[in-house]
């Protein structure tokens, strides 16, 4: 991959119009390189979720510019006609709860994304099994999500996010339901995966256990981002 993983300049998002308008994002600037994991922290109502939704192409920013790899995907309007395909192929999502599909087994939860992208079932399942093995849950490949522990479910969710080898992964409080040991294990995995697959990963978190692990942290306050070096850099 050439250039930046994801680059954001002057991103703004306004909800409503006139007197009732609310500027959720006022001036967001962010750069995450391929293979890098950055933290995004901020108090409630600071605009974290709005930013994540803009980055995830589920809501449209009001203004600004977003570049994914070396392609501008937003500049005062979406430059990509098929946002669904953009989310499927080029953005991975990891949620606070794993949100695995309960009626699919572990392999098919991961293989679903490549299948949706048009990969043959066999190839998609092979890719899923490789990822599950890499994330140390290969032995649970045939299990149903309800049979997994919380940590295992989160690792499967990470495998699903990586399934289509997206250049960027958005992780929304991925360690919130986990204890310290498992939370740190998930962060370790995210770092390993970022390095291994050259993926830019943005982790939105409140979790003080994992904040010291980031090399770079973006604070978001009143809709604006401020960058600082994290303890993980030292």
């Amino acid at each position, binding site marked *: 991959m050439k250039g930046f993983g994801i680059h954001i300049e002057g991103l703004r998002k306004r909800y409503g119009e006139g007197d009732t308008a609310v500027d959720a994002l006022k001036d967001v600037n962010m750069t995450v390189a391929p293979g890098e994991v950055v933290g995004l922290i901020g108090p409630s109502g600071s605009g*974290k*979720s*709005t930013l*994540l*939704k803009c980055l*995830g192409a*589920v*809501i449209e920013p009001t203004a600004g510019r977003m570049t994914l790899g070396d392609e501008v995907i937003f500049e005062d309007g979406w430059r990509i006609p098929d946002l*669904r*395909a953009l*989310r*499927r*192929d080029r953005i991975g*999502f990891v*949620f*606070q709860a794993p*949100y695995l*599909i*309960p*009626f*699919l087994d572990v392999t*098919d939860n991961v*293989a*679903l*994304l490549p*299948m*949706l*992208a048009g990969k043959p*079932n066999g190839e998609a399942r092979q890719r899923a099994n490789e990822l599950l093995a890499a994330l140390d849950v290969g032995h649970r490949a045939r299990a*149903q999500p309800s049979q997994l522990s919380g940590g295992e479910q989160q690792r499967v969710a990470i495998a*699903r996010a990586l399934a289509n080898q997206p250049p960027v992964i958005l992780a*929304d*409080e991925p360690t919130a339901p986990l204890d310290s040991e498992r939370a740190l294990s998930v962060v370790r995995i995210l770092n390993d995966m970022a390095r291994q697959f050259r993926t830019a990963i943005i982790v939105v978190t409140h979790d003080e256990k994992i904040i010291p692990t980031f090399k770079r942290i973006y604070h978001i306050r009143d809709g604006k981002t401020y960058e600082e070096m994290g303890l993980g850099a030292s």
Partner: protein
Amino acid sequence: MISLAGRDILYSWSKFVLTGIGLGLLIGVTLTMAGVYRGMVDDAKALISNSGADIWVVQRDTQGPYAESSSLRDDVYRALLGLPGVSRAANVTYLTMQVRLGNTDVRAMVVGYEPGQPGEPGYLVAGRQITRSHYEAVADVKTGFQLGDTIRIRRHDYRVVGLTRRMVSSGGDPMVFIPLKDAQEAQFLKDNDAILNERARTTANPTLNRPVVPGLLDAILASQNTNHNVNAVLVQIAPGVDPEQVASGIRRWKHLQAFTHLQMEEILVSKLIATSAKQIGMFLVILAIVSAAIVAFIIYTMTLGKIREIAVLKLIGTRNRTIAGMILQQAMGLGLIGFMVGKAAATVWAPFFPKFVLLEAGDAVRGFIVVMLICALASTLAIRVALRVDPATAIGG
């Protein structure tokens, strides 16, 4: 691509199967209602076919003998036999009544006929045809009578000498065949007390009891105690003769009503059971609406229970048509399970119905198509909800 609907059904198969069984019983009732209507039509057609007649001759201005009462003198058939194209003609009586066997009553249509003439049951499944002039009977197996049973009709006992099958009235009552004279008596003869009273009343009437006219009173009393009426004359025509031509001749020259096979079928199917057909039609419409409501409710509830999963699926790039297809396939799957259960249930319980229930393959095919259409229609509500799910709801905040 894997079948999301199939996986979901397999994952929660017990819920699907139980719901399908519930829906299936409802579909079974619907198929049975259709079968009841088909049975009524078939009974009517069987009644016409089994009579062996080409033309029914009845009292003028009536639509007898099945749809309305009709009374003819029993010598009319002789006049009909003289008409061109008529090969055979015979008197028949029909009377629906309670026939007793021991302490039990069986509702039956008692048919009076002349052995060897039109009106005789076409085939027997056991025993023999009536050979004596009195007190023998042939009964449909649906009466429950056995060969050798003694049954009571009005004042006389009859021995069952033969059994027949599918000989029923248009109302589904099984038939009991007895000799014509006995049937005339059963239908028209009064009881002994009534006869004595009538004789006394006639004797006391000076107009009828006139000593200067010897034999008048005896003649009048004799005419009161005998009966020469029948309900219809069944006519068979010679090969190659147009039945309508013969029937119109009877109407014109004999001043009687005559119906051909087609006309009698029209009376029985379109008029006699028309109200029942509408009644059943209403039931079918209501059952279809109830089935649709149940499927819609179940699929809607199941979809509401998967809102978060649907949001995740949309967020990770699943097409709307894939999600809609998943819900539609589940509704269709439910309909398929329901139809199979319903068809099996209707087949199992149909023989236990007191009246004939005819489950036609064509009705099953039509029923299957309707069930699938209803399920597809019912799923639209859930699809609407699913398509309105915002993928952003999968992301917190």
